């Protein structure tokens, strides 16, 4: 009997012991706590890609310029001032002598050059932004060739790149062409500096002969991480929380409003909301659509929304033939009339009203008219009799009323759609092959969107499409390898310039999922890069964007809305189209 009884006793003791071993016992509440859509993916500048990684980086690092907390326009940060040469190609930056790293080292021009050089020697996702700098792309290619075959290629020389540290406080950058939004780029994390000395223990020499080296990503973790921003990363508990503390070495620490910031991690949307509701965090930065819609219906005043600098759209594969594993047959989507028919048969209002429900605007253009680019003009669509281009305010007004023929891009018009489909050789949808539409299952809205679209096309055009669900990585692989026919995707602008959207559809762009090849488009974009007059540049890019809207290699579905929750006593957090929050000026009034 005793033997039996001992088993439960052992169990109980084990329970209590293990509960304490597993790290129970909380930490003190930070001045400001928030919760993101998910965990941090990486804090290594080279590999950064997701919104939450950038958000945190804005808090711990700073570049030559940084977004102003109120206006979000680039203001001098690591640099005190800058000069531009008359032709706009040579920029000289005077660094701030008081700028220090968290370990006390001064921030020098060498730190910027080192970080940028890393982007070229170990390419990452945003390396393409550096191509604006003279010699950068050539240097990157030379490095790749040299590392692969050192005997056949000369050793690349970084002196050929137009980014040089004149002295420890002066940085000179030479561009290929004038870039009017260069300061915006400098305020974007890929252009931030890094402290080479602190990363040294993590250096890994990959090839003795060529000297190719990399850094183990652990350099971004406390206690070894060295940063130059308003906050220091002092603690990172995997999948639980990150803790930032106000930096004692930051040059503008007088204006940093909070002493400590905590990022709580949860990957379950419902759980994220509960964490906010119970007061454990002050700000929930990304609220999922369904929950947001219910909160809106309840009239919650702590729900904050703003139109976003991003669009959700369907991408069509525009190649002449379908991918091999879909039969390799001729691709009906290669015909522009088919694409236009499909585009005009989608009633986007239904999607916005029943699926996403956050007051998004049904989209007719690729670029969102959210106000980030007030100077942009949208050309009238092919069925619009108006001659002048539309401003973004006019487009917003148009989209929020019922979609009519007038306006940029293609309207919702089933009659025209059916006619075009018949012209293309598929009257009433007869003979149209059942194409697959793939979507990723980790998205809460895309499953519903594709089901709505499938139904609408069936009802209105008589065509059938097959829905295929794929999980995240498999889906990404299919899209990037162009082994799909139709898929829902999205694009957010990285910096406030038109090129962040148009660059995607250049024939040579890696991000051109449709493989849409249009010489006119390429030429317009190329001319825009060379154009010094900002008005003429906007006109060229407006023309280019118009091509996307009319030839529909992609069908815009709706423009995103940023939804967040924050109580009234939280200051400095304001929903904005690019979802940028500068923690420097965030504080909670007690």
């Amino acid at each position: 009997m005793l033997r039996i009884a001992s088993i439960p006793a052992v169990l109980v003791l084990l329970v209590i012991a293990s509960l304490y071993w597993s790290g129970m016992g909380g930490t003190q509440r930070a001045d400001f706590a928030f919760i993101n859509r998910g965990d941090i993916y990486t804090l290594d500048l080279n590999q950064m890609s997701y919104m939450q990684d950038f958000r945190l980086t804005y808090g711990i690092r700073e570049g030559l310029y940084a977004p102003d907390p109120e206006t979000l326009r680039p203001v001098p940060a690591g640099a005190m001032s800058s000069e531009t040469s008359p032709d706009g190609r040579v920029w000289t930056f005077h660094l701030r002598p008081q700028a220090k790293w968290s370990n006390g080292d001064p921030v020098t021009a060498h730190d910027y050059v080192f970080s940028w050089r890393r982007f070229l020697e170990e390419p990452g996702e945003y390396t393409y932004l550096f191509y604006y700098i003279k010699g950068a792309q050539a240097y990157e290619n030379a490095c790749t060739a040299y590392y692969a075959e050192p005997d056949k290629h000369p050793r690349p020389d970084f002196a050929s790149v137009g980014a040089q540290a004149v002295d420890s406080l002066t940085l000179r950058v030479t561009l290929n062409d004038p870039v009017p939004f260069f300061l915006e780029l400098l305020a974007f994390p890929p252009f931030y500096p890094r402290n080479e000395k602190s990363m040294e223990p993590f250096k890994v020499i990959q090839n003795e002969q060529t000297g190719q080296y990399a850094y183990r990503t652990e350099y971004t973790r406390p206690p070894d991480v060295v940063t130059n921003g308003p906050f220091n990363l002092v603690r990172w508990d995997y999948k639980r929380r990150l803790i930032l503390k106000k930096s004692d070495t930051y040059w503008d620490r007088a204006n940093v409003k909070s002493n400590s910031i905590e990022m709580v991690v949860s990957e379950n949307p419902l759980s994220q909301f509960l964490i906010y509701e119970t007061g454990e965090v002050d700000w929930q930065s990304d609220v999922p659509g369904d929950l947001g819609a219910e909160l809106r219906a309840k009239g919650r005043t702590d729900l904050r929304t703003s139109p976003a600098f991003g669009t959700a759209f369907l991408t069509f594969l525009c190649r002449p033939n379908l991918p091999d594993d879909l039969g390799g047959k001729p691709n009906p989507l290669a015909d522009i009339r088919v694409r236009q028919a499909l585009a005009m048969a989608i009633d986007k209002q239904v999607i916005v009203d029943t699926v996403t429900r956050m007051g998004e605007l049904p989209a007719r253009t690729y670029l969102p008219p959210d106000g980030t680019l007030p100077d942009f003009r949208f050309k009238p669509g092919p069925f619009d009799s108006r001659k002048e281009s539309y401003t973004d305010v006019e487009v917003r007004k148009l989209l929020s009323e019922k979609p009519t023929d007038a306006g940029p891009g293609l309207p919702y018009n089933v009659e025209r759609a059916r006619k075009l489909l018949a012209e293309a050789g598929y009257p009433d949808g007869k003979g149209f092959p059942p194409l697959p539409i793939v979507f990723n299952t980790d998205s809460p809205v895309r499953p519903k969107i594709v089901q709505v679209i499938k139904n609408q096309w069936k009802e209105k055009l008589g065509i059938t499409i097959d829905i295929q669900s794929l999980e995240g990585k498999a889906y990404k692989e299919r899209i990037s390898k162009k082994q799909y026919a139709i898929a829902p995707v999205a694009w957010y602008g990285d910096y406030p310039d038109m090129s962040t959207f148009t660059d995607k559809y250049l024939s040579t762009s890696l991000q051109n999922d449709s493989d849409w090849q249009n010489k006119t488009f390429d030429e317009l974009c190329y001319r825009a890069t060379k154009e010094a007059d900002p008005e003429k540049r906007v006109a060229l890019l407006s023309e280019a964007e118009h091509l996307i809207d009319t030839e529909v290699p992609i069908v815009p579905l709706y423009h995103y809305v940023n939804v967040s929750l924050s109580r009234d006593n939280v200051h400095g957090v304001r929903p904005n189209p690019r979802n940028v929050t500068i923690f420097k000026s965030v504080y909670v009034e007690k």
Partner: protein
Amino acid sequence: MLQMALWRIAQFPLILAVIYLLTFTLAWVAPGNPFANEKNMDPTVIANLEKRFHARSAGEFLWHYPKNIVLHGDFGPSMQYREWSVNDIIFASLPVSVALGIFAVAIATFVGVGVGTLAAVKRGGFLDWTSLSIALIGISLPSFVTAALLLMFAAKTKIVPAGGWGSVSSAILPAIALSLLPMAYIVRLTRVSMLDVLGSDFVRTARAKGLSRSIVVWKHCLRNAFLPVLSYLGPAAAFAMTGSFVVEKVFNIPGLGQHFVNSVLNRDRTLILGVVLVYSVFLLTFNLLVDIAYAWVDPRIDVTARKE
């Protein structure tokens, strides 16, 4: 018994090696690139990453990583969460899962044995049917439904924290959610074996001799009836301890179970292998412990005899 235990432990490396190779093969052939990001990536970038992670070919992977595992116990870096090594991740999440798992198994055992015994003693009656039904609901509803409903209960009533892993009270509901499945099996197992024992001769003799019902049940029958439950505890504990994905996801618990599924979905090959090996070690160890406990509790059983 010691000899048996040592012989079993000696077999571990071989079994683990086979499991490692099988898992590696499956993870390698699955389409999907672990390094894929939100946007399409330059082939050069991917090639560089593959080089850094020694993942350019199956041969390179198998040459580099098993060596480190055997020599240093180092599973390498995670392919998805590049700041963290697999060891970091496992050491951070394993204690949580272990705690939660033990808690869940404890609840399942206590409640399950109690309910099962009552059901057997009052067989055919109302208590038998209802208790069985309640237990069976645990295996008739998908676990994500029960977990979500419990979470809602916590959110509405605010008696215990709704999710997270901070205080002892935050572990109660997840443990209950995790215990439902093993509890259902334990109830049935206890009931069945209790019925067996109650019908046996020595019970009838004891009752005829005038021993009270409770003493007969709790003192004599329970020990015999408990044996099948004991042998079930092995796999149950291993399962519960390496975490249940659903409970961890719904209650936002930073345990190991989420990595089971997420690492597969992310094609994070180093993490998959690390997690699978941990799971296998637990499973093998627990099965061994259960066999030992089995013999200890009932000296009549000769565990060294080949189980046929």
